[in-house]
């Protein structure tokens, strides 16, 4: 049945080469943990991606209940945590996943760094990776404000002061992030929500796409 459906589609649009490009490629012996257990370090990038998928999914589901409004943000989070089935689990996944993704990203970076895998011809991919790292940090930062509790609020106050510390454009950067020259409030929350849910994920997907295409083009770096 499945085979027939697949054949029906394949006959018309020839999808086999498409998924072959994505999924069907050889894994060199030196990156296969079955051959050398120490090769598990090559899993960190994939694990980062896996946790990112969890973040995207749990985030999508959280927006079914969350509202980015200063009157209701905290209450909607409290409601989904206490009244909605599995609310604690879904928010827990997003909360802990946010930390895990940074850890995995860091381990992946360390592996690439100490193996010298960033060297020619892979310098560009290292740069894209660094951009992904920044986007992830920004996602963590903007997401931190969304529950709109005391910790979130004052963490954001501090963040905005850091942004203000930038020479020359500091004040503008702060107002741009804040939505208001002085009040950390309604506009800040709406802005951080938009950045967290639309702008940064869009940037992240583009960068991840480039990252993966380059890996496929250049292959995995050789053994040490």
């Amino acid at each position: 049945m499945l085979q027939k459906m697949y054949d029906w589609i394949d006959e018309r649009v020839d999808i086999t080469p498409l998924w072959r490009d994505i999924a069907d490629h050889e894994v060199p012996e030196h990156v296969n943990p079955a051959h050398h257990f120490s090769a598990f370090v090559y899993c960190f990038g994939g694990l980062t991606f896996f946790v990112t998928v969890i973040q995207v999914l749990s985030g999508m589901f959280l927006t079914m209940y969350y509202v980015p409004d200063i009157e209701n943000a905290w209450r909607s989070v409290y409601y989904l945590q206490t009244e909605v089935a599995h609310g604690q689990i879904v928010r827990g996944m997003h909360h802990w996943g946010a930390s895990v993704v940074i850890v995995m990203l860091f381990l992946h970076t360390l592996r690439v760094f100490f193996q010298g895998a960033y060297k020619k011809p892979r310098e560009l991919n290292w740069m894209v990776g660094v951009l992904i790292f920044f986007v992830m940090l920004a996602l963590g930062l903007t997401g931190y404000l969304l529950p709109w509790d005391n910790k979130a609020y004052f963490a954001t106050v501090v963040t905005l002061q850091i942004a203000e510390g930038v020479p020359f454009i500091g004040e503008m950067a702060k107002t741009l992030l804040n939505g208001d020259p002085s009040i950390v409030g309604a506009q800040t929350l709406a802005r951080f929500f938009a950045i967290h849910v639309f702008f940064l994920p869009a940037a992240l997907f583009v960068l991840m796409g480039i990252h993966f295409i380059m890996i496929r083009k250049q292959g995995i770096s050789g053994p040490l």
Partner: protein
Amino acid sequence: MSEKKQQVSRRQFLNYTLTGVGGFMAASMLAPMVRFAIDPVLKASAGGDMQAVADVSEITTEPQRFEWTVEQVDAWYTSDVTHSAWVYKNENDEIVPLSPVCKHLGCQVNWAGNEDYPDQFYCPCHDGRYLKDGTNVPNTPPDAPLDLFEYEVKDGTLYLGQPVPREEV
């Protein structure tokens, strides 16, 4: 029955194992999220309490609109919502509490809302009409009589519950 053993190749075995493990992981990841999303469907609806609406002595044989306010808890938002009913006493001295919601598309009907039909309920949206007992007038848009509230009288006060649909007369 053939004696030939069904051989599972190494490739097939790994395929099945990976699909199984992957499927299990994906399912355990998605299960809480899906349950989270469909929660409103599975939540038991809170049956409304009876609300005090009016003094029985106020009720006449002419339908009157009575309003009452309930505290509505909408997830994280609590507000006061006003409901209304058209109430009168019929010739057998029974209280008839009619829902004001038109059975056509849900507008609010009014008693004697149209001067051409002074003894009928009238819906301004599409000229729907109902007789005094709530029966829809044939050849007007509504296809069912107005809902009747559950009601009880305690110590001379009328309490109303939920509106209950009636079968077509």
